[in-house]
């Protein structure tokens, strides 16, 4: 059995008296493609926010690549291999498509501290080393003199960065749009650009928050194929939040259903589809009474 890349155990988060999420369990391995569904306000996005470090869980633990990440900052959790997209698109609107991706690429650059020195600092302390992280960040972000003088090393790194970003844009079918400002892209392309940007951080687990929202049927079908492809090409585990039942049922191997922050069902699509609790949560018990156990056809 491969090691778990993302694991949530008994995760709960309360906002005052509101239990937005409780007893949340999740386990994602490489190659997994799992879904997270539930009616509006069920706590799906809250779950994403807890996993990525936006919120601190009230109880329970989240592990990324085996490491407990409760209390870590979002950028540190991201560096451990967890990346996400957003339900309401949150691109850097005034940057070009290319720069949106490049900004997320952690470059291999060592103007101050050598790779050996950073590795040594990392090894010295068994816990996560602040010194190593600071050195890596300084290497990455304080190279203004090289930018100003356009040193050969700087240009070489920028080119490598651009090649990497272009490759990601190409995978997402956005290469022709690379110089376009993000805000000028059509909706579907913005969603794909968000995925490209998330991939640029080099994740092992990708969280997609309603990637198909606002797309037409054809775009949705293409996206399903693409998500499957990403999983194999980048060796990812993927967790998808989706409103569109058909889409989730079509691609996910395991589905978790949330309602009022509680996990009401978990299992393969067929099991979840016929679970009376799920049907009730989605369509209300009056529908259930009228229709018996009929299957919900699409998004509620």
């Amino acid at each position, binding site marked *: 059995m491969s090691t778990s890349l993302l694991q949530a155990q008994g995760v709960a988060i309360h906002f005052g008296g509101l239990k937005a999420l409780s007893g949340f369990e999740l386990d994602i391995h490489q190659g997994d493609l799992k879904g997270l569904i539930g009616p509006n306000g069920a706590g799906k996005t809250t779950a994403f926010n807890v996993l990525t470090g936006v919120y601190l869980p009230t109880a329970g633990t989240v592990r990324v690549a085996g490491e407990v990440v409760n209390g870590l*900052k979002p950028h540190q959790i991201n560096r451990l291999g967890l*990346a996400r997209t957003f339900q309401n698109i949150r691109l850097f609107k005034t940057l070009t498509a290319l720069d949106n991706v490049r*900004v997320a690429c952690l470059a291999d650059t060592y103007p101050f501290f050598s790779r050996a020195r950073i590795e040594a600092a990392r090894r010295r302390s068994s816990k996560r080393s602040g010194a190593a992280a600071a050195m890596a*960040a300084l290497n990455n*972000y304080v*190279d203004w003199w090289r930018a*100003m003088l356009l040193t050969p090393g700087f240009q070489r790194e920028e080119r490598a960065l651009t090649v990497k970003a272009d490759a990601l844009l190409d995978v997402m079918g956005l290469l022709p749009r690379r110089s376009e400002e993000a805000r000028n892209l059509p909706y579907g392309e913005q969603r794909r650009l968000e995925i490209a940007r998330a991939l640029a951080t080099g994740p092992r687990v990708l969280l997609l928050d309603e990637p198909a929202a606002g797309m037409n049927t054809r775009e949705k079908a293409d996206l399903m194929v693409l998500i499957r492809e990403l999983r194999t090409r980048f060796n990812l585990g993927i967790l998808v939040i989706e409103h569109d039942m058909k889409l989730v049922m079509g691609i996910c191997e395991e589905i978790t259903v949330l309602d009022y922050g509680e996990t009401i069902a978990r299992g393969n699509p067929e099991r979840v589809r016929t679970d009376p609790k799920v049907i009730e949560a989605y369509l209300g018990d009056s529908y259930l009474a009228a229709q018996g156990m009929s299957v919900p056809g699409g998004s509620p």
Partner: protein
Amino acid sequence: MGDLVQHLINGLAAGTIYALVALGYTMVYGVLKLINFAHGDVMMVGTFGAYAVAVGLGRPAQSSLLGVAAIFLVAMGGCALLGLFIERFAYRPLREKPRLTALITAIGISFTLSYGFQLDFGPLPGAAPRAFPEIIPPREWLVFGDRTVVIWNWQVISLLIALLLMVALQALVYRSRFGRAMRAVSFDHRTAALMGIPVDRVIALTFMLGSALAAGAGILFAIKDTVVQPLMGLYVGLKAFVAAVIGGIGNVPGAVVGGLLLGLVEEFVVGYSSSSWRDAVAFSFLILVLLVRPSGLFGTVTAEKV
């Protein structure tokens, strides 16, 4: 004609200093949406640092090339640390609080610095204005006609230093990885963090950078004015803030253009009417610009989506 050229030169020399300070306002506003009212006072502290180093070096050393370099480096480095300190302990704890809280804090720091430096206590300088050492002994660099136009060496040097700092900053913001991260943070720091950008560090570095620029500007200002005093930060800071708003706050080229424009406007008012009108006209100019372009000359109009 000679008059006009002379005023143009003086105006540009003053304007570059405003521009350098305005850049600090605009960068911090860019990443935090905070008007850092303490920025002018950080400049003042930097100028006093330079004053201390210059006095410490003594007469021949302070105006040698190495001496001047040391004065700039110590003042700019010291101010970078001061900026880091202010961000870490005054602004960072308030980052998720309403914006007004940080703004009031900024005003508090501004007053703490400008009035704290008036205390006569140990090495602190006291309230009295004092003469800034002539680290660049004034010499006429170019004289035209019958002394109708005189360009001083310090004007040229100050212009060159200011331009160099601005070009460096431009490269930093628009070419380097740090600049890209800074623009991402400026757009949405929560999303930036989720994309692996160390937001705290980027903001801290922005403060250090702005503060260092302010120290450089403060020294140039002291060379021009020949006097340093603890309240200079309030005055120059306010003017530079006006310059940043004229250019469109948050916009790097805007701060430069705003600074130069303000310097020129002030110089022409002083030259052709009376120096008592200078501040009145400077602020009227601000009002005029804002009436025509509410988000400044280079600012982007942020349309509210309904």
